[in-house]
């Protein structure tokens, strides 16, 4: 009897927390379908019928889709480039011996301890020098070297690819590059997908860097566009605002629905090998 009561209490608590997690999003979606007048009038959990108008409103005021497109371009590019480079780097570390290898890997590890925005001012300066300020390329270059990805992939590669496989390929007559592309890369793909997803989400959510680098509205990333909602000019059309926020996080929602297992496994797994 006591057992059931305790269980009930536990479920109640967990459901409560669950609701706290979900309700803001639910309200966001609901309010995205209501008119500003309705929203001002009171809270409601039932969707309204203002979706189309809000949509028109938000897209006429802001370049939502340009923002989404820009961010998608940057994040996809970073995901592909950084995963490939991290894969090549991890491969190099696991299967080869050369001077300074320990040192180089140590540098990669050490960089994980550096605060994200430490080089912000310097990067701004660099972009001016290279004449890439206010370009999406600048955002892509910043994210190309994924140190955490290298660290994760190194562990992954070591556990998934036995040395004998590489040796068999060498005896078979494959060049080192061919071994990487035909043998190692396909086997590292799940790991690379993992870090690719993390990298995609991280860069999608990155705010301070685009804020610093990008100044032309056409090139704004989605986080910058959303922040525009925050200025007093647009502020009173609540329905449109809610819808705008909702649109901005749709890609993340999609990623989550598709890859939540991979992501959660990645967090848990990456931490155990400490």
């Amino acid at each position: 009897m006591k057992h059931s009561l305790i269980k009930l209490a536990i479920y109640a608590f967990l459901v409560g927390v669950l609701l706290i997690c979900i309700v803001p999003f639910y309200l966001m979606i609901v309010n995205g379908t209501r008119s500003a007048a309705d929203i001002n009038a009171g809270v409601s959990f039932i969707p309204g019928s203002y979706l189309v108008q809000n949509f028109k409103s938000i897209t006429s005021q802001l370049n939502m889709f340009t923002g989404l497109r820009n961010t998608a371009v940057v994040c996809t590019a970073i995901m592909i480039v950084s995963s490939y480079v991290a894969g090549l780097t991890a491969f190099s570390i696991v299967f080869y011996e050369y001077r300074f290898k320990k040192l180089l890997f140590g540098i990669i590890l050490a960089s994980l301890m550096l605060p994200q925005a430490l080089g912000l001012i310097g990067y701004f300066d660099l972009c001016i020098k290279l004449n890439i300020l206010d370009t999406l390329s600048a955002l892509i270059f910043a994210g190309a070297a994924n140190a955490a990805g290298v660290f994760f992939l190194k562990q992954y590669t070591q556990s998934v690819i036995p040395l004998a496989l590489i040796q068999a390929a060498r005896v078979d007559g494959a060049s080192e590059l061919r071994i990487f592309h035909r043998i190692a890369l396909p086997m590292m793909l799940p790991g690379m997908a993992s870090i690719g997803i993390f990298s995609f989400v991280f860069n999608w959510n990155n705010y301070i860097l685009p804020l610093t680098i990008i100044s032309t509205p056409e090139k704004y990333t989605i986080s910058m566009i959303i922040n525009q909602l925050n200025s007093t000019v647009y502020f009173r059309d609540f329905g449109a605002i809610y819808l705008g926020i909702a649109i901005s996080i749709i890609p993340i929602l999609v990623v989550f629905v598709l890859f939540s297992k991979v992501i959660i496994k990645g967090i848990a797994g990456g931490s155990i090998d400490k």
Partner: protein
Amino acid sequence: MAQLKLENVCKAYTGKILTVKDVNLQVNDGELMVFVGPSGCGKSTTLRMIAGLEEITSGKLYIGNRVVNSVTPKDRNIAMVFQNYALYPHMTVYDNIAFGLRSQKVPKGEIDKRVMEAAEMLVLTDKLQKKPKHLSGGERQRVAVGRAVVRKPEVFLFDEPLSNLDATLREKMRVQLRQLQLKLKTTVVYVTHDQVEAMTMGDRICVMNKGVIQQVDTPHNLYNKPKNTFVAKFIGSPQANVVDAQLVQDNDKVLVKIENSQFELPKEKADKVKKYVGKSVLCCLRPEMINHVVDQECQVINKIQLEVNVMEDLGHERLVYFPLTGKECVARIGSRGSIEIGKKYTFCFDMERCHIFDKDSGENISL
């Protein structure tokens, strides 16, 4: 097809202990040479040096007439079958086999022809589109062999290819591999820790221990003319009996004294061991050289009473275990005559075929 030659080859890891010491060996064209020895004896290391997967610390390696010490594996024209097969898990059987040829930029038509040939030879034709994880152990092993065969190399290297298979499959594959090698007439270096495998497969066998070659010879010679106690004990199952003995001169005869019994050495052998008379030696008798007197007649002088501790009845023969000089020894006897545990019986030692070894060096002094 080429010869293989190792000249004073040594391997040391990080400059310390020598894993492989001064190996000198020649493998003839078309020969199947087996490297055999206990774990850690250096056989796999030597194989990998031949493959180019380990650097040779000193000495020279020849494949054919070329010194290949600094040649990368892919340019040595060799193929290797790994112990765990090392199949590429994300590729089909066809792609696994074709990989080497594709890497060497062999034309597509030729690749297809060779892969199909190999698949037929190894009964893999209907498995070509499958991936390794869907294959049985035996099938995977055949794919590994197929991958090697298809490249038509100068030398085949096998690193304990059968050790992951169960006993029945192992026997079957042993025969098949040998048939394959005879058909292809390629030079093969084959590493195994199983001396039965070595004896049944090899044209010649190289016995290694602690990085040093003990003896390189045909199976027959290894069995009947072991150069030292290690080879004598390693080859042959059940293990040969090696016991302490004394050589005693009795007029013009040399006697081998084991515990309280004496056995007469035939003249040829006696001449060879003359220098050791009066000294302590080791006497080696294989199980079949100890006979139960019920079975056959023997010279009265080579008889001994032994107490049987354990008996194993194999059907066609029996193994009886008895203590001698404090060691547990074994004799192979026929199925006739009753044997009871704990009782003493008369046995006869075949001194014609026994071996005498130097007690310190282990060298065979009676050859």
